[in-house]
C-alpha cells in the first residue's frame, strides 16, 4: 500500500478505536437483536436452529446499517471532506480504504461475535462455522453498499433512517445468498459452494460499484 493510503487507513482505524467504541455498540446491538428474536418466535430450540442463520444475518445487517451514517458525516462536518476532494488522490480508492477501515472496526467484531451468539440459537458446530464464514465474506459487501447510502445522505443531519431505507433493498441479494449458503451447509438442498461463491462474487461487485457510486455522490455533495 502506498504511503497516503496507509496514512488514511491508520487514521480511520485510530479514530474509530478512540471515539465512542463504535465496535462495542455494534456488537451490543447485534446481541440485542439476537436476544429479542426468541421472545418473538418462542423458545423452540428446533425452530431457532432452523432460522438461526437468518437471525444472525438480519442482526448483522441491522448492526452494520446502524454504524454507517457516520462514515463520511464526521469528515464533512469538520471540513475534512473538502480537503480530501482536493488532495489529488483518487476518491474511489479513498472511499474503498475508508470502507475497509470501517469494516475492520465495526464489521469484523460482528463476525467474531457470531459464533458466540449462535450458541443462543442452538446452532451445531457446522452451522456455526458456515454462518461465520458467510458473514466474513458478506459483511464487507454490506459496508460497501451502505457507503453509497452514507454518501448520499452525508449532507442530511438525520440521515440514518433514510440511509437504511435506501440501502436495504440493495442488500437483498447479499442477504439471500448469505442465508442460503449457511442453510446449504446445514441441510443441504444445494451444495454449500454454489451460493457461497455467488456471495463472494456479489462482494466483489460491491467493491467496484460501491466506491464508484459513493465517490460520485460525495463529489456532488461538496458544493
Amino acid at each position, binding site marked *: 500500500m502506498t504511503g497516503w493510503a496507509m496514512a488514511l487507513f491508520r487514521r480511520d482505524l485510530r479514530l474509530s478505536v478512540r471515539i465512542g467504541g463504535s465496535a462495542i455498540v455494534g456488537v451490543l446491538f447485534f446481541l440485542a437483536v439476537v436476544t429479542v428474536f426468541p421472545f418473538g418466535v418462542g423458545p423452540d430450540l428446533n425452530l431457532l436452529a432452523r432460522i438461526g442463520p437468518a437471525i444472525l444475518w438480519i442482526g448483522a445487517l441491522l448492526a452494520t446499517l446502524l454504524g454507517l451514517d457516520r462514515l463520511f458525516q464526521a469528515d464533512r462536518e469538520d471540513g475534512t471532506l473538502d480537503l480530501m476532494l482536493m488532495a489529488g488522490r483518487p476518491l474511489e480508492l479513498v472511499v474503498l480504504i475508508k470502507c475497509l477501515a470501517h469494516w475492520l472496526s465495526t464489521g469484523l467484531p460482528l463476525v467474531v461475535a457470531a459464533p458466540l451468539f449462535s450458541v443462543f440459537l442452538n446452532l451445531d458446530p457446522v452451522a456455526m462455522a458456515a454462518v461465520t464464514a458467510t458473514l466474513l465474506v458478506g459483511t464487507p459487501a454490506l459496508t460497501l453498499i451502505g457507503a453509497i447510502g452514507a454518501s448520499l445522505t452525508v449532507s442530511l443531519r438525520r440521515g440514518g433512517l433514510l440511509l437504511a431505507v435506501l440501502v436495504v*433493498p440493495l442488500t437483498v441479494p447479499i442477504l439471500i445468498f448469505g442465508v442460503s449458503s449457511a442453510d446449504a451447509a446445514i441441510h443441504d438442498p444445494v451444495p454449500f459452494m454454489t451460493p457461497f461463491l455467488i456471495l463472494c462474487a456479489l462482494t466483489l461487485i460491491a467493491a467496484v460499484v460501491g466506491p464508484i457510486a459513493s465517490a460520485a455522490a460525495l463529489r456532488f455533495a461538496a458544493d
Partner: protein
Amino acid sequence: MAFWDYANPTRFLKLVQVLLPWLVGLCVATFAIGLYMAFFTAPEDYQQGDTIRIMYIHVPSAWLCMMCYTVMSISSIGTLVWKHPLADVSAKSAAPIGAAFTFMALVTGSLWGKPMWGTYWEWDARMTSVLVLLIMYLGLMALWRTMDDPIKAGKAAAVLTLVGALNLPIIKFSVDWWNTLHQPASVVRLDGPTIHSSQLWPLLVMALAFTLLFFVLHLMAMRNEVLRRRVRALRMRAASVSRPATASASAQPAE
C-alpha cells in the same frame, strides 16, 4: 432546430402546451377502446372465469413500473453526464408515477392471486421483486423530499437510480434463486406467448393506453416541477436583493 433545444425549460413548456391536449385525447380514446375490449369482447377464461379481466390492468401496470424505472435511469444519465436540468426534472416527476403503477401492479396482482392461489400474498419471485422495486421508488422519493436544494437532490437521486438499475437484475436473479429454493412449483404461471389472440389484442391496447397515460402524467408532472422550481428561484432572488440596512427605524404606532 435540434432535438436538444427542446430541453430548454421555456421551450419545453411551450411544447407541452401544444402536445398535451392531443396526448390526453389520444389516451382517453385508447382507454375507451381498451376497456370496452377488456370488458365486453374479450372472452372469459375457461379456468379463471371473469377474474382473467384483472390481467388487463395488472399486466400493463407491471410493464409500466419497469418502463418508468428505465425512463428514470435514462434521465439520470442525462443529469450526471450532460448535467441538464430538465433530465433531473424528468427523473423526479417520474418517480411518484412509477411508484403508483408499481403499487397498482401489486394490488391487482394480489387481488388476482386470491382466486388463483387462494391467498392474497404469495412470496412468489415476481411479486417479491416488484415489492423491492416499490421500496426503491419510495426511497428515491424520500431522498428527493429530504434535500432542500433540488440540484443536489437530483444528482444524489441520479446516482442512486443508476445503482438501482445495476442492482435490479441482480435482485431479480437472487429472488428467483431464493424462490426456487423455498417454493415448490405450485404457482400457476400465465405463460405469455401462448395467450390467445382474443385476449392478446385487448391486452396490447390496454398496454398502449397505459403507456400514453404515463406520458400524459409525466409531462404534466414535469411542467409542474419546472414551475415549482421557477417559483423557488424567484423567491430566492427576492430574498437576496440587497438593500442597505436603514439605521433609523420608523416609529411604529402603538396599538
